[in-house]
């Protein structure tokens, strides 16, 4: 379980997170929605310790991230995977080298494996995300959707417990978005992964979410199921999910 308690974060004097409190339950898909630039990715990065809170704390299974020493943090991070918005594949490596990277560098140390064994593992994992026969390509030779799927393969290759998705369907066509949604659901149901998805793709939210949270003004203004989200009276939430121009959320805010 990931617990976020009274999290505050500001950049250059601008408050981004202003007392976020949130619990991510194990085995569920929790979606975080909100306007572009409202701090969703910042919140996600706090969960894995890529950002340090100004105030408040993030705890994973009761252990506070900020209190962990380097070794404990390394152990904690090995239970996580993070799907970055642009994939964040390493340009200098081929697709298969990217996919097996978390195994080769498990725990932050380089491990020697048989090359054929690694290629086999990469091919199997790529097959899971529907990306067979691209093992020897470089990331620059892949389309946006292919990069995301390869990044997803890299994210699941070491069997993590938690997987954090940063806008997994942004910039993809509807069919590819549906493919990614299905993969998120499959990973959750079949491998039992706890997933946190940051997105503003409402179709994706309705399809994959067990829990939905809305971030607005640096705070969580809604937390509940998809059906509750649709019935909730919160004008900010309703304006956002109904894609309205007029309402409390102002253009450019």
């Amino acid at each position, binding site marked *: 379980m990931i617990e976020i308690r009274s999290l505050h974060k500001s950049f250059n004097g601008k408050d981004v997170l202003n007392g976020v409190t949130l619990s991510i339950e194990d085995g569920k898909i929790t979606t975080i929605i909100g306007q572009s630039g409202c701090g969703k990715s910042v919140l996600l*990065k706090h969960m*894995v*310790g*890529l950002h340090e809170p100004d105030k408040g704390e993030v705890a994973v299974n009761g252990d506070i991230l900020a209190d962990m020493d380097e070794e404990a943090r*390394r152990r904690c*991070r*090995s239970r*996580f*995977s*993070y799907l*970055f*918005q*642009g994939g*964040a*594949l*390493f*340009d*200098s490596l081929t697709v298969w080298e990217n996919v097996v*990277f*978390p195994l080769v*560098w*498990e*725990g*932050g*140390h*380089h491990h020697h494996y048989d090359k054929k064994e690694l290629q086999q593992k990469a091919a199997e994992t790529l097959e899971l995300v529907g990306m067979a026969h691209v093992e020897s390509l470089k990331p620059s030779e892949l389309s946006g959707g292919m990069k995301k799927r390869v990044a997803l393969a890299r994210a699941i290759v070491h069997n993590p417990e938690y997987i954090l998705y940063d806008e997994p369907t942004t910039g993809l066509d509807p069919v590819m978005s549906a493919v990614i949604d299905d993969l998120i659901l499959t990973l959750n149901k079949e491998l039992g992964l706890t997933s946190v998805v940051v997105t503003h793709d409402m179709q994706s939210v309705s399809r994959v979410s067990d829990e939905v949270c809305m971030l607005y003004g640096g705070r969580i203004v809604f937390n509940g199921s998809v059906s509750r989200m649709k019935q909730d009276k919160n004008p900010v939430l309703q304006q956002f999910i109904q894609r309205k121009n007029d309402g409390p959320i102002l253009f450019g805010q």
Partner: protein
Amino acid sequence: MIYHQAMVKKSLLDAAENVGRFSLFVNRSYRSFFPFPPFPHMFKDLYEISVRSMPIIILVSAFMGIIMSYQLIYELRTFGAEMYVGGIVAVAVCRELGPVFAAMILAGRISSGIAAELGTMRISEQIDALEVMSVNPLNYLVAPRLLAGLVMIPMLTVFADAVAIAGSFLVAGNILHIHILKYIDNIRFYLDSVDILSGLIKSMVFSQIIVVVGSYFGFFTKGGAEGVGKATTNAVVVASILILVADYFLTALFFG
């Protein structure tokens, strides 16, 4: 007036912050050497720093030797001392010009390349991806380059020295009709091992400046493609300045 005071104060604070952050970065980079980077992982950096830099080093060093020789022969003729050109060129090149010229060229080639690569990795979240996978980005990205620079840049410097001396012989041999053995004898008479050694130690220090400055600016890049451009420019400018400053202190240390 108050505005100007505030601006000066802000500039000083920014400079102090940068110096502090750079010092911490250098400290963390050297502490990240262990576990030692695997050799195959270093191979690309060794190749990039040495083989890929060779053509420009040969070109610049050869012209440096040729032009120096021309200038010296012209001046030394006034005193009838043109036969000493080999010794003078060798001492100047091994002590000073070889290491500094090679370092300046490599600052333009290697520092900018490292800053651009790491900067692009930063803005495309590849460095964050390394951290999430518990890989120390300094151990993975900076330590292999520091080691590759430490091995390869002194070697390139020796090579640059040899090419410059050969270039100078082309001119001296042609104008003064000196035999190559007499030319080498002249060099051996004037050139001490301390001249070569001081040049090598200088190039070792310069190699670390070249890599660490490029890595620093790349590592802290922000602001998209524009940020990568700024990081690249800053890396070359700062590395060049630091090379000259370090050269002054090292020269004072060896020959002061």
